[in-house]
């Protein structure tokens, strides 16, 4: 079992963010913490349930007073038996941590921090609506090391307005040079309802036709331009190359780690490990069911179990998810594991699809594992959709 805890608060919402998070006053925060602890305690734990990882995400969990985080960890321990080597992660934003806070985190058992940094270029950070500069980030990062954290992640983002291959490379090298254990590199996604979407949707729509940035510049006049598809593709290819120079190995579409530091919690999601998510809008998955908590704060504060959305998964859904999530990892998924889990040879279910994409060079098979090729990763959606029931 994995445990996810959602903290929906942040200092200020970023321009691209459509996560469940918002700025809130202390009173709301403390009422939320009460409801959250109650939800954790309500989780059926007789007989006791063991957990191999905990992940406190947000929002920005690090804006909470450190004692509240410690309180959450106490509640978790009341309910779950944590493995001795459990991975316990927490997301933190630069500018929200102090030496003192970091020390309390460590004492509460947290052993991995994930910093939302996004870029080493202050102009890009500003365009994203981030509250910190690169320098502020490096300060926070150094504090974390000083506090004794030996497993740190840095989040970076490509495909930003105004970003060039050079500036992306600089961000990668700057982050890697700090020698974190893990780097996540995502593409910017323009989500409806965000200021970023409103500003750049017209550009995105044109780029979606496959036009170049030069052509885009002729059609639209703007202060900043989104990188075109070719540029993004090169950025993506460069990411793995550059990070490998620093000893990082790519293990998933967007994740890179030094030996032994791949995020176990996230690997759990891609390999079908059951998880319980607590907090506003958090998802849980057990066997053939997934449910999502309400996103309505008032409702959640009244009773965290109100307004849950249930999704029941039949065997076809489960097989599709197994493949789709498995393909996110660079190692892919194992035939034997599929057989073991569903009692059927994968070729009898997906033989023709796998065959077709192997022939097109988008999938490959090696030592009983099936995975996307480099080219396949670029068009992963097209490949993945064909595994849906």
């Amino acid at each position, binding site marked *: 079992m994995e445990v996810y805890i959602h903290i929906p608060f942040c200092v200020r919402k970023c321009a691209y963010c459509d996560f469940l998070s918002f700025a809130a006053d202390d009173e709301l925060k403390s009422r939320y913490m009460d409801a959250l602890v109650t939800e954790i305690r309500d989780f059926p734990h007789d007989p006791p349930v063991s957990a191999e990882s905990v992940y406190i995400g947000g929002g920005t969990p690090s804006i909470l007073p450190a004692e509240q985080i410690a309180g959450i960890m106490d509640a978790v321990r009341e309910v779950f038996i944590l493995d001795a080597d459990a991975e316990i992660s927490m997301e933190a934003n630069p500018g929200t941590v102090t030496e003192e806070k970091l020390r309390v985190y460590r004492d509460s058992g947290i052993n991995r921090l994930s910093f939302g940094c996004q870029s080493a270029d202050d102009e890009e950070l500003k365009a994203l609506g981030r509250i910190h500069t690169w320098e502020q980030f490096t300060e926070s990062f150094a504090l974390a090391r000083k506090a004794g954290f030996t497993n740190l992640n840095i989040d970076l983002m490509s495909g930003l307005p105004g970003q060039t291959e050079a500036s992306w490379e600089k961000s990668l090298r700057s982050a890697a040079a700090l020698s974190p254990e893990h780097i996540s590199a995502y593409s910017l996604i323009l989500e409806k309802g965000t200021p970023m979407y409103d500003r750049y949707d017209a550009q995105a729509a044109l780029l979606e036709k496959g036009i170049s940035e030069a052509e885009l510049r002729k059609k639209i006049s703007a202060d900043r331009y989104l990188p075109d598809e070719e540029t993004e593709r090169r950025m993506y290819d460069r990411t793995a190359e550059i990070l490998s120079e620093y000893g990082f190995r790519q293990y998933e579409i967007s994740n890179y780690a030094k030996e032994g530091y791949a995020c176990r919690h996230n690997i759990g999601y891609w390999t079908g490990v059951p998880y319980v998510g607590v907090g506003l809008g958090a998802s849980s998955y057990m066997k053939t069911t997934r449910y999502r908590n309400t996103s309505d704060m008032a409702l959640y504060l009244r009773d965290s179990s109100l307004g849950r959305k249930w999704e029941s998964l039949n065997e076809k859904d489960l097989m599709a998810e197994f493949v789709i999530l498995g393909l996110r990892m660079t190692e892919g998924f194992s035939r034997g594991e599929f057989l073991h889990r569903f009692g059927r040879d994968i070729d009898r279910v997906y033989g023709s699809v796998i065959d077709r994409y192997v022939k097109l060079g988008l999938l490959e098979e090696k030592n009983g594992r099936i995975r996307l090729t480099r080219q396949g990763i670029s068009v992963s959606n097209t490949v*993945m959709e064909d595994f849906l029931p």
Partner: protein
Amino acid sequence: MAGIDQSRIRNFCIIAHIDHGKSTLADRIIEKTGLLTSREMQDQVLDNMDLERERGITIKAQACRIIYNAKDGQEYILNMIDTPGHVDFNYEVSRSLAACDGAVLVVDSTQGVEAQTVGNVYLAMEHDLEIFPVLNKIDLPSAHPEEVKQEIEDIIGIEAEDAPEISAKTGQNVEEVLEDIVKKIPAPDGDPKAPLKALIFDSVYDAYKGVIISVRIRDGSVKPGDRIRLMATGAEEEVVEVGYFGAGQMIPCDELTTGMVGYITASIKRIQDTRVGDTVTNADRPCDEALPGYKKVQPMVYCGLYTEDPTKYPDLRDALEKLELNDASLFYEPETSAALGFGFRCGFLGLLHLEIVTERLEREYDLDLITTAPGVVYKVHKTNGEVIELTNPSNLPDPAEIDYMEEPIVKAEIMVTKDYVGAIMQLCEERRGEYQNMEYLEANRALLTYHMPLNEIIYDFFDALKSRSHGYASLDYEMLGYQRSELVKLDILVNREPVDALSFIVFADSAYERGRKMCEKLKDEIPRQLFDIPVQAAIGSKVIARETVKALRKDVLAKCYGGDISRKKKLLEKQKEGKKRMRQFGNVEIPKEAFLNVLKLDEQ
């Protein structure tokens, strides 16, 4: 209804330019004669097809019998036959006229004589009809009846001095029209004692009664139980019912006598047996020879019709069969397209006819249609001396076998307000028009005459005309004949495979421009796939325009953790749903909408 006095029957029609108020006058006449009360009147009762009422135009000829008590104290039976106003429907006008003895010519007193007014009058004259004019819309402030009367006398050459000045809208002076019908239109001639001789001027299929034929009795009479023979096909049937037309309904009667207009049902099952223009006679006592009927009009515009859902093909065939019954000008034959499946190559009198037929098929028969690019009938002169009439670009012989080609030329008359004369002349030149004449009908209105290839008109001429004149231009055209021309077949290739449904014949000099536009449009309609898809326009093996649907290069890479999984799946499902709506074409998937959108004429 036995004992109707032949001398008190009047068979007439109303002819007019579109929008001059023909249908409104018909409504008022029905109202005045008391067949229906004002309250029962729905606007334009004669137009009983939804489509007609919506567009405010009359498509199908309709008949209606009314009783009128004239000022001379006698009761008259008036058979009013409604006729379509648009040039595309000359054929229908023609068959309606054949059933009449006279015509009421409605002229809008605010607009005066229009191109179609003249055309319809000439048609009526060809049928030896007695014609008298009526000036409508007299209630409008801009009416200038005296000038219009002069115009009628000058341009058409019929006497208009004492023409009734009416308002069909308000009913003002409509009495006068009725009196004129009685006084000026002759009673039908014909011998009541002679063998039955009746002209079929319309037929419709009714689910309960079978085929219903509309007839005008020239000689003799017909009643239920008679055996009739349809002279063209030789089919014989027993008459089940005869009757006349009320407003929007059929009223059975004992007998149809000489001079009457009415209908016959005779358990005719095969709709192919009834031909509009054919003569009905008595099988036991046949007449010597058939009526001349009237000339069959040749379709001028052709296109392929396909159902969006290929399994609906038989429904389309049934619908066309039924439609053909009362639209003899509609031509169709089966064809197959690699891209669209089974369908029909259909011939129409013009673009409006095409549009109306497709709309009727979609609406009345609940079909979703794909229409291929309309084309005209080309004459292909082969080197071996053979001449082919080409209606489907796919059938064009190998260029090596072609000596030369000819295309149909029309005389286009464009009425336009002064301000836009220049713009419209420019448009006509661009479309290969040859200037013939310009005449100012009034200080502000000119009639431009051009000789122009029909091909140019059916492309997007109407839309261009409308936009360049801001709606102040109207077009009328008639066939002149054929003219030798440099024509080529333009093929559209997707991923190097020709898409037959998109091929068309085009003037050589316009090929590049048209090809480029088609490629651009198609490029936007085809979703990106795993490989580059060239979209090309080609003449023979020579590619003249090219666009590329670029291969997908990179999906945006979103993170995908616990809470994202459902969302990611929904995204993929949506994408997959879109794929299902596509037609597999070689290796390429093309959405059905792409064909529709590319073939749509009105989108520039």
